[in-house]
């Protein structure tokens, strides 16, 4: 039995007519299952509801409501003071624009360089292309944290575009090191390999160059891979914290995640912190709700390696 199941997985069968949940009744179908689902819903959802609701309440009201259900409900004295306070205390619009600029640039640059590299590896056979692919995949086991500090020293040592020493305190240092990504190359490579080679062979015979095949044949067919790579690049770029914490000192270049540290140093207003937290979460939350299927699929496809 075990052997059968394993080979079935490795063959990656299409989803069968009967979904496993259909064929396997029990827990998922019972009243107990439903109670569990709802309880877990509260566990995962209520803290976020609490965050958003609290962002509209003065601290006194928040603490008065803590022991009751009111903590999760928009009741009592509610206003926008916390939000106004945030804008008063930090240049929030600048932080947010920086985050948008950095994430969008990382995604855009990453889509171009990684898909091109994957195209070359998948389509153009040249000596050593297996070795190149192997090296790229091998780097996947190195967590960013293990090289963050040598990288910090390195970007502070190498010359910047204008010839001055060091990349610290720039937008570039927050974008360019993360543009090329082994996992993105791998995802594109996998997807390109599933597109029949006859398509571009025919185009080549008709005189199209590799760049043209890449641009007009392969990329237009790669929608799902582009969506997956975009999401898997955007999320870490938007959420990145350790790196900008180390490489940016100038306030006007800071992204929103690092900006939250301002609220810890000064006298704590929890309402304002919750307002700030809600505002930097909202853009991603809206995107997630809008493109839910793409989000879930991209996470699921990140599990295909291994």
């Amino acid at each position, binding site marked *: 039995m075990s052997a059968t199941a394993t080979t079935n997985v490795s063959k990656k069968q299409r989803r069968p007519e009967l979904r496993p949940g259909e064929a396997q009744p029990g827990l998922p179908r019972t009243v107990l299952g439903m109670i569990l689902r709802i309880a877990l819903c509260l566990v995962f959802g209520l803290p976020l509801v609490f965050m958003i609701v609290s962002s509209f309440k003065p601290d006194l009201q928040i603490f008065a409501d803590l022991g009751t259900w009111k903590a999760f409900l928009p009741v009592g004295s509610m206003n926008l003071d916390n939000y106004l306070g945030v804008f008063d205390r930090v240049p929030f619009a600048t932080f947010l624009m920086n985050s948008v600029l950095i994430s969008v640039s990382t995604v855009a640059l990453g889509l171009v360089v990684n898909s091109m590299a994957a195209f070359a590896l998948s389509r153009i056979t040249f000596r050593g292309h297996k070795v*190149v692919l192997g090296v790229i995949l091998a780097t996947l086991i190195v967590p960013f944290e293990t090289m963050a500090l*040598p990288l910090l020293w390195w970007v502070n040592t190498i010359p910047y575009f204008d010839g001055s020493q060091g990349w610290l305190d720039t937008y570039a240092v927050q974008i360019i090191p993360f543009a090329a990504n082994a996992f993105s190359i791998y995802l594109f490579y996998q997807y390109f390999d599933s597109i*029949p080679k006859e398509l571009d062979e025919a185009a080549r015979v008709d005189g199209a160059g590799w760049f043209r095949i890449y641009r007009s044949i392969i990329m237009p067919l790669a929608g799902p891979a582009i969506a997956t790579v975009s999401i898997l690049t955007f999320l870490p770029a938007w959420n990145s914290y350790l790196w900008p914490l180390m490489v940016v000192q100038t306030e006007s270049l800071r992204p929103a995640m690092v900006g939250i540290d301002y609220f810890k140093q000064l006298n704590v207003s929890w309402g304002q912190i919750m307002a700030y937290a809600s505002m930097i979460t909202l853009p991603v939350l809206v995107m997630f709700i809008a493109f839910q299927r793409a989000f879930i699929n991209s996470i699921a496809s990140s599990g295909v390696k291994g």
Partner: protein
Amino acid sequence: MSAAVVAAARATASSRSGHSLKKTDKHSHRTALLMLLPAGVLMITFLLIPIGLTFVLAFTNARLISPEPAKFIGVGNFTRLFENATFWKSLGNTVLFAVVIVPIQSAVALALAVLINTRMRGVNFFRTVYFLPVVTSMVVVSMLWMFMYQPNGLINALLAKVGIQGPDWLGDPHWALLALILMSIWQACGFHMVIWLSGLQTIPGELYEAASLDGASRWQQFAYVTWPGLRQTAIFILITITIAAFSLFTQVNIMTQGGPLDSTSTVVFMAVRTGFQQQQTGYASAISLVFFVIVLAVSLIQRYLTRDKEAGR
């Protein structure tokens, strides 16, 4: 793309291929290099060189900003590191964090996946809610839970309702690491739920039919059909959670700064503190190198223990 297009393309290619493709081989080679170039240069500059530098800098006294060039000091950084009690404490915390979080987080995630793997009305709603913490950044989650963990915060207020006097979660060395563990599981479960779910959906329904015809109980179906079918998924989840757990940093930096009494200090937190705040790049590289060797060893051991014993594949 339609099958007809592919078939037509295939026919054209086979009828006209041959020497015309061969002639352009040299040109192809150049194009391939050109297309690899941008990603290649970036990966060499910002990934391979820094990895190599870790091995070099770890044996020097390099500082982040220093007028004097770095000097080779042999294993000095390592002897200093291994004599440092905070390092052993941090390593212990990191290992404890990983050992607790790996089984619990993967089990909870699997339970979530089983619960939503059904064609029931409204199941998408549950999936969305369980997944929400994943799209919320760890920075936000850390601030939120820091607030909830306050001695007079939400969690203790709720515990007081049922007559339990909650501890000072982040201020008590006995509770602080546990507090970080709980919130980290809360944040990341949804991610692994989705991966388990995609694994569950590759198991053919016929296997369950056959098993129930043979009179297998629900538990037996799980043990003999579901679990063996999730083998590859389980290995992937085991390794990714372990690496993520070893890399613990954001929560510590925001919520506890390694305290109280180093009870939540981790290897990465220590590396950042020495390499960034104290600017001792050489020493921080030594920490990074030790950390890298540990992570590599652990994932190799995991791969070895979970290798497919039946077939080399």
